């Protein structure tokens, strides 16, 4: 059990990295990775919402939608739950945890339509994970997102001094750089499976 959880956790961070391997959450990856502190703030907010969203959507699907044969409503129900949850979290943080709100608050409205959140909640159901596995998977996915953001913010600082051909300036060269970062992650392929013998 513990081995399976550790396997899910590390494979979500390295071999199944949401940004670099599964291409979820590319918009914040390109938009908010310019500075290290905002990259960390955004990914901390994403990780937090991912875990909370999974904690809320998994029981709703398993106990409410599935037994009633309403599985096809998954998309509508999940996106609404996430939208409400983000609003609720913002209110709670503003009222009871002002320091946390000051650090993460500006990123929260961005998160509702972030595909990583909806993606992780749907993939947890698709993969047939139980409650503990789903939560660990979400935590791993969030930390993997953070790893990619932090690494890439370092790459982008160097990119600002680069002089690419004119049509490549700005986003195109950033995408080529992301391709090379992603290439380095393919090096982890098979590593986690070997370590945990899965």
């Amino acid at each position, binding site marked *: 059990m513990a081995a399976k959880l550790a396997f899910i956790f590390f494979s979500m961070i390295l071999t199944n990295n949401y940004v*670099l*391997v*599964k*291409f*979820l*959450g*590319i*918009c*914040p990856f*390109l*938009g*908010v990775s*310019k*500075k290290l502190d*905002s990259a960390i703030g955004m990914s901390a907010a994403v990780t937090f919402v991912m875990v909370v969203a999974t904690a809320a959507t998994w029981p709703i699907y398993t106990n409410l939608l599935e037994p009633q044969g309403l599985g*096809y*409503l*998954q*998309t*509508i129900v999940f*996106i*609404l739950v996430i*939208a409400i949850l983000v609003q609720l979290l913002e209110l709670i943080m503003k009222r009871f945890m002002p320091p946390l709100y000051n650090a993460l608050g*500006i*990123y929260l*409205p*961005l998160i*509702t*339509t*972030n*595909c990583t959140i*909806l*993606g992780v909640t*749907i*993939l947890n159901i*698709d993969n047939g994970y139980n409650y503990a596995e789903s939560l660990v998977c979400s935590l791993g996915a969030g930390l993997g997102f953070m790893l990619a953001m932090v690494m890439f913010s370092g790459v982008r600082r160097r990119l600002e001094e680069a002089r690419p*051909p*004119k*049509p*490549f*300036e*700005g*986003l*195109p*060269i*950033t*995408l*080529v750089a*992301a*391709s*090379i970062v*992603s*290439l380095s*992650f*393919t090096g982890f392929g098979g590593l986690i499976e070997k370590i945990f013998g899965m």
Partner: protein
Amino acid sequence: MEKQSKKSNRLAVLTNGLLHENPNLRLVLGTCPTLAITTSVFNSVGMGLAATFVLIGSNMAISACRKLIPDKVRIPAFITIIAGFVTVVMMLVQAFVPDLYNALGVYLPLIVVNCIILGRAEMFASKNPVIESALDGLGMGIGFTLTLTVMGFVRELLGAGTVLGFQVLPANIEPFSILVSPPGGFFVFGVLMAVAIWLDERRGKTVNADPETAGCAGCANSALCHGEGGKV
């Protein structure tokens, strides 16, 4: 006279999405499916058509209720309408093209959070009449489908040596299999975007917005976060 200008205006709305306001390459919206599912032409066309259907449907529905939806709750209302259309598409694809359903996997339900659709709802459908909104959805959908197809064509041809599953490159040429893997997605997208910028500049059109913030300016959330994402 007035009728004619209205007609040409509608044509402009339709063709806008093809290159100058191409949703992927110029507005930098909907990057996730663009990178993820363009490993073959079949997947690209399927994804493009599914998104086009949702785009036309949601644009028309949102445009029709644009005066009924209170401004404060418009984003959740838009998302709910879009999610309804996505569910319809999912059920249709699952019933009639199960191969495509399996190939697209989680990216099919994720059309809900595709910023092209919410972006057009926010920028166009919530301000324009039904017919124009439908045309805008069609134009943007075709632009999206074309970009996906070009990406899928390049990646499938060079990465696997096939087009739509048929062997095209001679078998003795080793395909660059890196192009169908994740790093190739970023690379081909970056190069295509540079080509689109180059083409637009050659035609003497001004480049829309600052390319650095284009992704944020086009994003439906930019009103909510006041462009923080682009500036920080």
